[in-house]
Structures are given as structure tokens and as C-alpha cells.
């Protein structure tokens, strides 16, 4: 056990010191920040900070639209279309609209602008709407009612279970984004960790160090030490990314409704972490074994991609899993060890998983990890010493029986 620890520490330190690892680890948050900066820059360049100076002309053929002319923009009345058009051409106003005399019955507004756009900018439409609503009913009601008329609905949906209790996790963010983010995190971890494992094992296989290692420690100790060492390194990377994502979200996106108030029940968090760790372990062991079977790093890489793809399988059924968690496909994906962690990540926040499915899926996952560890160590030990020849499936089965 002591030697496993030595290998664990060695693999962890070597990976943490690896230049490519440091670069990738730091690059992701930097990219996020740069991306956010560019987004902000583009935003403020494209939408120069609100049209306080925006001049919108209008021709009031219906009459009585002469108040609230400085609400959101400056509304300049023109007696006729000719004058308004001249002002638009000379640049005094950015656009103008005509309120026809049958507007109240038809709702038709004709807008003139010199800008090219697919449709009118929502902010402009909102400003004009505000102006029209205020003029229509402003005199007849209180300011509160007027404000409500402008924004009649701020929706908050709550789902009830059969007993009539409120169900948790109905936050739209929890329901859609959290599963997505968790599943993505797990998949990224699997891809990265498998990369490191393949690299590390192929390196030792290619430079023949493996024989020295096997003469000092057992194959199982190498396997466990590597999987855990590289796993912790990968975990450190993910934690750093999540923290920096959190910071960006906190600083930058707090204004977006829903994102500012993320909260997760602790039981959900514990289950998510359990699935995350178990899911990672299963794939890491499989990847390590693939690394030992392939003769070159490149060959192992193509095999590992196929395995990693199974982890992404639940993503194709994202809609089914989230919207109809009791569907047979969703249940099957929850129980199958290679897809269960990603699927569980998706299902957990949106309404939970029945206890029997949870326990069966966790048990199967743990059993699969133990089996892969056991069989893996045997394949690992035999294949690591084979150079230049990839064993057939039948031979691999024999190694498991004999080794």
C-alpha cells in the first residue's frame, strides 16, 4: 500500500509540473476572461450605452400622443411626414414613426429608419411601446397600474408532486444548466484524465521503464497509483476551472436573472460528487488498461476515443432524460455503469431519481469499477510487456483467466 502511495505522489507531482498541464489549466480561465471581455466590448460597442440622446421622431395623425415625450428616448413630434423625413435624412433624428388615425383600432405603426436590420431592435420597440401605452392610458389610471400594464407578467412556475408538496429543483437554471454543466465537467474530466493516463502509460511502455517498475511493485499498485495520482491532478484542474467560472459568473453574469441565485441542496451535491468520482474512476481504469494494450500512444488514443464516446451517449438523449426521466431509455442509461454518472448528473437536479434506481445504479457502478480494477491489473501486467503486437480479444480473455 505504501508503494501505491509513492506512485500516487510521483504521478501527481510529475503531472502538476508538466508544462502542458500548467498551460491548459491556466489557459481555460484566461480564455473565459478574455471571452467575457470581448463579449462586453462587443456589447458596449454594438449597443452604445443606452439611447439617452436618442431622438425618435413621430407623426401623430391619431391625436393625443403628446405626453411622456422623454420616456426612454426623446420623442420629437412632427406635423407631417415630409418634415420628419427631412429630419431623418439630415440626421437630427435616428428614426421616426407614424401613428395613423385608426391606430387605436388597428394597432398599426409604420416605422421609418435608415439602418439595415432584420427587425426593429427590441429595446427600441420597448421604448416606443412604453410611449404608446403611457399616452393611451396614462391619464386614466395610477402610475403603478401603468407600470404593470407595461410589464404584465414576471413568471415563477412551481411544480407540485402527487401529495401536493412543492417539488424542489424547479429553478430553470438547476433544471437545465446544472445538469448540462455537471455532465460537461465529468466528460471533460474523463477526456483529460484519459489523455494523461494514456500519455503516462504509453511513455513508460515505449521507454521500457515498465519492466523496472514491475520488478519493484505489482501491476495493481501501478494501476491504482496512476489512476488516483492523475485523477487528483485532473480534479485540481477541474476545481480551478469551476472556481474561475464561478468568479466570472459572479462578477459578470449576476445581472442575468436566475444565474445570481444558484443554490443546491446538500444531498444533491453529495450525490453529484459521488457519481462524479465513481464515474471518473471507472473510465480512468478502462483508459489505463487501453493504454497498456495499445502498442503506440496513437493506437491507444483511437481506442480510447471510442470508449470516451460512450460517456457522451446520454448527451444525445438530453431532452428525453430531462423532460421524461421515467422513459425506458433514461432508466437504462441511469443503470448502465458507463453512462450512469453522466445520466445521473442530468437527472438529479431536475426532480431526482427513484431510490431503487439510485441504489442499483451506484451498486452496478461500484461493481464495474472493482471488476475493471481486478481484470485490468491482469491485462495490464501481461500487455505492458508486449511490444509490437496488440493482443486479440480472445488472448485478452485468456490473460484475465491465467494471470
Amino acid at each position: 500500500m505504501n508503494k501505491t502511495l509513492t506512485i500516487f505522489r510521483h504521478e501527481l507531482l510529475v503531472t502538476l509540473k508538466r508544462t502542458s498541464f500548467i498551460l491548459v489549466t491556466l489557459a481555460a480561465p484566461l480564455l473565459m476572461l478574455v471571452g467575457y471581455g470581448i463579449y462586453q466590448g462587443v456589447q458596449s460597442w454594438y449597443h452604445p450605452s443606452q439611447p439617452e440622446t436618442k431622438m425618435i421622431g413621430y407623426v401623430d395623425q391619431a391625436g393625443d400622443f403628446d405626453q411622456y415625450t422623454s420616456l426612454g428616448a426623446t420623442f420629437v413630434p412632427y406635423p407631417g411626414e415630409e418634415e420628419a423625413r427631412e429630419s431623418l435624412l439630415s440626421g437630427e433624428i435616428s428614426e421616426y414613426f407614424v401613428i395613423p388615425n385608426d391606430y387605436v383600432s388597428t394597432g398599426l405603426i409604420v416605422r421609418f429608419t435608415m439602418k439595415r436590420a432584420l427587425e426593429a431592435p427590441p429595446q427600441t420597440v420597448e421604448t416606443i411601446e412604453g410611449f404608446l401605452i403611457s399616452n393611451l392610458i396614462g391619464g386614466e389610471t395610477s402610475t403603478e397600474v401603468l407600470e404593470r400594464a407595461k410589464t404584465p407578467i414576471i413568471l415563477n412556475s412551481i411544480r407540485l408532486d402527487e401529495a401536493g408538496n412543492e417539488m424542489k429543483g424547479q429553478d430553470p437554471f438547476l433544471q437545465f444548466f446544472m445538469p448540462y454543466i455537471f455532465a460537461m465537467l465529468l466528460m471533460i474530466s474523463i477526456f483529460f484524465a484519459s489523455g494523461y493516463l494514456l500519455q503516462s502509460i504509453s511513455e513508460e511502455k515505449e521507454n521500457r521503464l515498465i519492466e523496472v517498475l514491475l520488478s519493484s511493485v505489482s501491476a495493481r499498485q501501478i494501476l491504482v497509483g496512476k489512476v488516483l495520482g492523475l485523477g487528483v491532478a485532473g480534479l485540481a484542474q477541474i476545481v480551478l476551472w469551476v472556481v474561475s467560472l464561478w468568479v466570472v459568473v459572479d462578477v459578470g453574469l449576476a445581472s442575468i436573472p436566475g444565474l445570481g441565485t444558484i443554490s443546491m441542496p446538500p444531498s444533491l451535491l453529495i450525490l453529484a460528487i459521488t457519481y462524479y468520482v465513481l464515474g471518473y474512476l471507472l473510465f480512468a481504469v478502462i483508459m489505463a488498461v487501453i493504454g497498456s494494450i495499445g502498442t503506440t500512444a496513437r493506437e491507444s488514443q483511437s481506442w480510447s476515443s471510442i470508449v470516451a464516446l460512450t460517456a457522451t451517449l446520454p448527451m444525445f438523449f438530453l431532452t428525453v432524460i430531462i423532460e421524461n426521466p421515467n422513459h425506458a431509455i433514461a432508466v437504462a442509461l441511469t443503470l448502465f455503469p458507463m453512462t450512469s454518472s453522466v445520466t445521473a448528473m442530468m437527472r438529479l437536479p431536475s426532480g431526482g431519481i427513484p431510490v431503487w434506481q439510485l441504489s442499483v445504479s451506484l451498486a452496478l457502478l461500484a461493481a464495474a469499477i472493482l471488476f475493471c480494477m481486478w481484470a485490468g491489473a491482469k491485462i495490464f501486467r501481461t500487455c505492458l510487456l508486449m511490444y509490437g503486437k496488440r493482443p486479440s480479444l480472445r488472448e485478452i480473455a485468456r490473460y484475465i483467466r491465467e494471470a
Partner: protein
Amino acid sequence: MNTVSKAVAVSKANKRFGDVEAAKDISFEVEAGEIFGLIGPNGAGKTTVIRMLMDIIKPDSGDIRILGEPFREATKNRMGYLPEERGLYKKLTVVDTLSYLASLKGTSGSATRQRATMLLERTGMLPHQHKKVEELSKGMAQLIQFIATILHDPDLVIFDEPFYGLDPVNTKLLKDMVSELRKQGKTIILSTHMMNEVEELCDRILMINKGRSVLYGDLKEIKTRYRTDSVFISIEGELGRIDGVVTTRDHGTYQELVLDGKTSPQSVLANLVNRNVTVNRFEVAVPPLSEIFIQIAKGQGE
């Protein structure tokens, strides 16, 4: 040292890889404190035998005892193994490599560091200790691997082709270090296909060919057994006729006299001395191991 005198005891070990019999009925013993030569041509099965000793592969049948007991995981700590195929972590420094590999053998701390410094000093590698392995030449890396093999002070050391690819200076250095290990009471197994290179080092040998043991025992005794009835001489003047010499072969700087089997080399020498011939060289021809091997391989083929 272990009180049991047999460092290695292999009895009837067999190993097949598919259709290839890599080891067939291999039995041998290595005495504690000797240098044992495991020799044979490339592909004879030497590495398979060694891997079975190191428990890297398991024999299909047969019994192997190391240092007086069946192989256990802890046995690995008392063994050193320099494989034929070798490499190191390219990005790691020399000292980090040595301390990691030693810790995998269960040794660490200041005593190990001191021993590492001593061995680096001995091989002239001390100035390079903080270099990364990728900055070293191939020969230097091989010295580091040699040090890594004996750093944890193992009782039984197995070297697979340890001198292969080394220059004469470093070959001499490592041979001296191997001899020193024996003086310290360590047991050493030398595996090589360069049979003549290790003749001077080995006490006893096992020669294998095509997975089978073909020659096993004390090196001196084997050589006497395979002595051809001839002498090498180098003289000034005419050789003349000598009783009992069947053929004379000319090898340029010296001549080989093949005797009839009844005449002893001593009587040939006496004959020459009596005739006042100046003798520069007189040697009873003992065939080098490689020739013994060729002889045996021929016999097997027939």
C-alpha cells in the same frame, strides 16, 4: 545475507507463448555470493527465464524459489533488475529518478541519498546529478540505470546485457563494480549473448538455446571438458617434426598444433625445449564459450 546458500532455485520451469516454447524444463541453482552467467544467443529465452525469476511473468509449470523462499511481493525489495530493454523518465533529473526508483524498492532517506552520491561519484556522474535524463548521452543514461539497479543494496542482482552498447572504458568500470558487488557478498546473475565478454567474470553458467538448457555447471570444469586436444604456440625458427602432432594449422602470428589424443601438451613443450627452440607463447587451447556453444548447437541440429 540469508543463511540459505541457494540464492535461486529453479526446478522444471516451463513457459509457452502461443506456439513458442520460450522455456522448456529449465532447472538450475544459483549459489549465494557467486556470479552466475545466463548465456545463449539472441532469442534463446534468457529474458523469459529472468522475467520468471522476477515474477513479472509466471511459469506455466515448475517451481521457483528466490532467496530461500517462494516469490513474495516483499522479495522484490531484495532484488535488483537491470532489464535489457531500458529507459528512464526523460523529464526527470538524475537524482529525482534515483530517489523515485529507490523508494519503489522501499528505501529512502539520508542513507539512500548518501549511497546514491557515492555511486554517482564512483561512476563519474556526480557533476550531472541535477541534469534531466534527456540531457544525458546514451552511455551516461546506462550508468544511471546501473546505479538505479543496485541503489537499494539488493542481495540478488540480475543484469540483462549490462555492457551492451557501452564504450570500453565504461564496460571496464561496470565489470569492476560487478566484481566489487560479489566481494560484498551479493549474488549476481549476468545474462548476455556476448559469451566471451563475461567468461572472466562468471563462476558458473547456464547456457540455453531455443528455450532449453544445453550446458550447466562450473565454468572451469566445462572448459576442461570441452578442451580440444591442441596447443597454440609461437616460436622463433623452424618447428620441425614433433611426435604426436597430427596436424599443424597456421594462424598467422601463431600456430595451432592438433595432438593425437595420447600425447600430453607437456611432452610437446619438453620436446621444443630439448631442441633449444625459443618459445614466445605456449598455451593449451581452451575453446572460448562461443565455440563451445557452436559445437553444442551443431550437435543439437544433427
